């Protein structure tokens, strides 16, 4: 009997690989047809899409640059998803984290205090965690206290995040007078992270976050309580799990992870706050975080793999646009189709079992 279970476990893995493979192939197949209708060279398009990340070191670095924030925003969605709640607010949490980190960093430097990097960097990371966590906390508390659907509260908070970022980026106190666009002054050097071989140093924190979420979910009492609520809210409540407390904590941690995405974008990539950040990278990571999380269905170990794969497609999409004038939207189409197919095929399988 022991063997039976092992067999079902390995067959689950095989089944998952099958689901992913079929979904990706189906999606790319449909994309190929559309590309053909647009009159592009199909094999060249597909080759560019899938290999741009690996042909040059620049491509690979770009891919990692996108993978890092995507891991954070994916986790921001994954944790509440385990208790069957949707955090659509990864975008807003990311922007709010980025904005508050910039505000604190610039306020310190403008007030003439010079803090060494080993104080400044941890300080700003904590600020980013608290800022994103605060946004998550609002949504979690509204759900716990007034039973407000977090989909609504987090979407609304996204708008708050965007407008608050615009407010800071255009604020005369923070704005860079030399820039024509609304962009803040650069952060002091002690507040920024560097690169190692073209790879952003913030990758260390992304790796830490993977361990953190894994241990949280698999090893801690809080993680057990989160899982229990996800499995069966009624039983969890009956046996003494404090639902309001857990949902508030879960959304705080999710928001904090979302906030870190923005924190490292500011500290490691832009080194200042750019108004357009809200609509380009901000929106991109917010949305793709949700897609990536849906692909792995809440499994923390799958997250970095899926985030990397999504980033490969994003980098490939950029390359297609630049070299072949293929619209990026075509790639977005294939990404959306991949998620759709995975969800459909997985559902079919589960119903049969």
């Amino acid at each position, binding site marked *: *009997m*022991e063997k*039976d*279970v092992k067999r079902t476990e390995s067959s689950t893995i095989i089944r998952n690989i099958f689901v992913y493979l079929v979904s990706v192939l189906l999606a790319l197949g449909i994309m190929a047809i559309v590309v053909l209708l647009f009159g592009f060279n199909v094999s060249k398009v597909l080759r560019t899409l899938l290999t741009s990340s690996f042909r040059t070191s620049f491509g690979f670095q770009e891919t990692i640059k996108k993978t890092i924030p995507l891991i954070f925003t994916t986790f921001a969605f994954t944790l509440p998803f385990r208790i069957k709640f949707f955090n659509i607010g990864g975008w807003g949490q990311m922007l709010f984290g980025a904005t508050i980190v910039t505000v604190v960093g610039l306020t310190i430097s403008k007030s003439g205090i010079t803090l060494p990097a080993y104080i400044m960097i941890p300080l700003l990371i904590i600020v980013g965690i608290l800022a994103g966590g605060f946004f998550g906390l609002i949504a979690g508390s509204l759900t716990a206290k007034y039973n407000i659907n977090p989909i609504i509260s987090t979407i609304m908070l996204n708008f708050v995040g965007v407008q608050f970022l615009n407010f800071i980026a255009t604020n005369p106190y923070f704005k860079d007078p030399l820039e024509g666009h609304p962009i803040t002054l650069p952060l002091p050097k002690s507040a920024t992270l560097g690169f190692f071989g073209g790879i952003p140093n913030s990758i260390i924190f992304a790796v830490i976050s993977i361990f953190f979420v894994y241990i949280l979910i698999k*090893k*801690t*009492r*809080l*993680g*057990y*309580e989160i*899982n*229990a609520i996800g*499995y*069966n809210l*009624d*039983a*969890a409540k*009956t*046996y*003494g799990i*404090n639902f309001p407390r857990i949902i508030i904590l879960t959304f705080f941690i999710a928001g904090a992870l979302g906030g870190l995405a923005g924190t490292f974008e500011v500290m490691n990539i832009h080194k200042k706050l750019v108004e357009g950040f809200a609509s380009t990278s901000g929106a991109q990571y917010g949305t793709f975080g949700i897609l990536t999380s849906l692909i792995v269905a809440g499994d923390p170990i799958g997250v970095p793999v899926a985030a990397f794969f999504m980033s490969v497609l994003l980098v490939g999409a950029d390359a297609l646009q630049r070299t072949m004038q293929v619209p990026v939207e075509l790639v977005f189409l294939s990404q959306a189709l991949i998620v759709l197919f995975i969800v459909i095929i997985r559902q079919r399988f589960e119903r049969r079992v």
Partner: protein
Amino acid sequence: MEDENLVELRNIRKAFGEVVALDNVTFSVKKREIHGLLGENGSGKTTLMNILYGLYSPDKGEIYFEGKRVKIPSPFDSIKLGIGMVHQVSTLVPEFTATENIILGTEGDKYTLPINREREKIKEMSKNLGVKFPLNVKVKELSAGIKQKIEIIRALYRGAKLLILDEPTTSLVESEFQELLKSLKALVNGGVTIIFITHKIKEALQACDRVTVLRRGRVQGIEKREDTNKEKLVKLMFMEKEIRVTESAIPKVELPPCKKSKEPVLILKNVSVEGGEKSVGLNNVSFEVYGGEIFGVASVSGNGEKELAEITINPSKIKNGDILISAKSVKNYETLDVFSNGVFYTPEDRIKEGILPEGSIKENILLGHHAKKRFLRNNIFINWEEARKTALDVIKNYNVITPTEELAIRRLSGGNIQKVIIGRAFISPINLLVTHNPTSGLDISTVEFIFKKLVETRNSGSAVLWINEDLDELIIISDRIAVLHKGELKGIFEREEFDKYKIGLLMIGG
């Protein structure tokens, strides 16, 4: 013509796994009569009606409708035959009006919904039957009694000749019940036949021309209203006919003498709890449970037994009064604090409230104990090794049939799931076990196992609060039985005074 049977079920047998729900049941209803189907919860009333309505198919037996042998594989077929069912809980769409609800799902014209035309039809029909209700008000604004009328008309609108009413009085007040009676008489005069499912003898006597009494899946008697009375029906409902004890589905377990503790383990002092939609709550309930005794609580579902079970582990729901465990007031405790005071609980609905279906057996064993030192490291991390060992112990000691402790619990059978739930209660030493309908729907060997476990717990000096809707079971191994009716304690019987008739009568408020 009047005496002709409209419907007849012959020698119906239905088993779920090893549990026989209906055993050779023959049941017939004459045209234009109101026929009561009387029995306790779990007596097989609902199973029998679900067979007639096409939700279950019988293992054996035949169904005749209007003299012809029929097969009813689905509710769609029963509706086609002219059988309509009004369920216990309203199935109307609250945001729709009565008219919209009634025509919902019927075939209108191809592309349009002829709502005005149909409204006139419904008006006409309800007028002829003497059943009045507003047609254009959203259903959510209407009372339970009116909603029920709408459900009845909906069934008739679809051509029902036979109407099955499942516990129709659950959410009605007395005046609404009288109103319902009037409507039913009017319907019968209009040519409709009615099956009235109930566990309330008083209502059966008032509403029905004839009553069939079911007990443990068998027909105990068919009584005409003019020839029967309350006493007769109570006997049929609650007592074995002759010496069927050995055949009954209750195992025999001995209850040896056992010394009660000096001080009570659980004390309820004038406890009141607000009721919910389906229940009356608790009103000024006081009793004490001692170590070394099994304190049975007998109650028909919806009379406050659910609240009683809940407040023992979640005292925050108490409105008035006090609850003490081992002489300490726990009124302000959270569930986990109550648990850490040596109390544990097995809920009534084991799937809905008892388990994490997708979780492993190991994860399920931990539920409720997850805040205890033994299962934690540094107060933050779960000690999974300890949880695994404990799960293996439970699997071994309770004979849970499973390949491994990592299996998702939903893949176990009902009996094995219950063994895990019971086993979980004993992984830490306990002073008080609160258990609610632990045996419902289980086969006789598992029931016996649970009985033995309850007795063993009592013999070890712990207290057992056993809330159960099956009086026969309570009588076998309770030291005392308290009766709960409409949220009030109607009496406590010592073991020497156990009398099925007396207790049964109190359970139904007689």
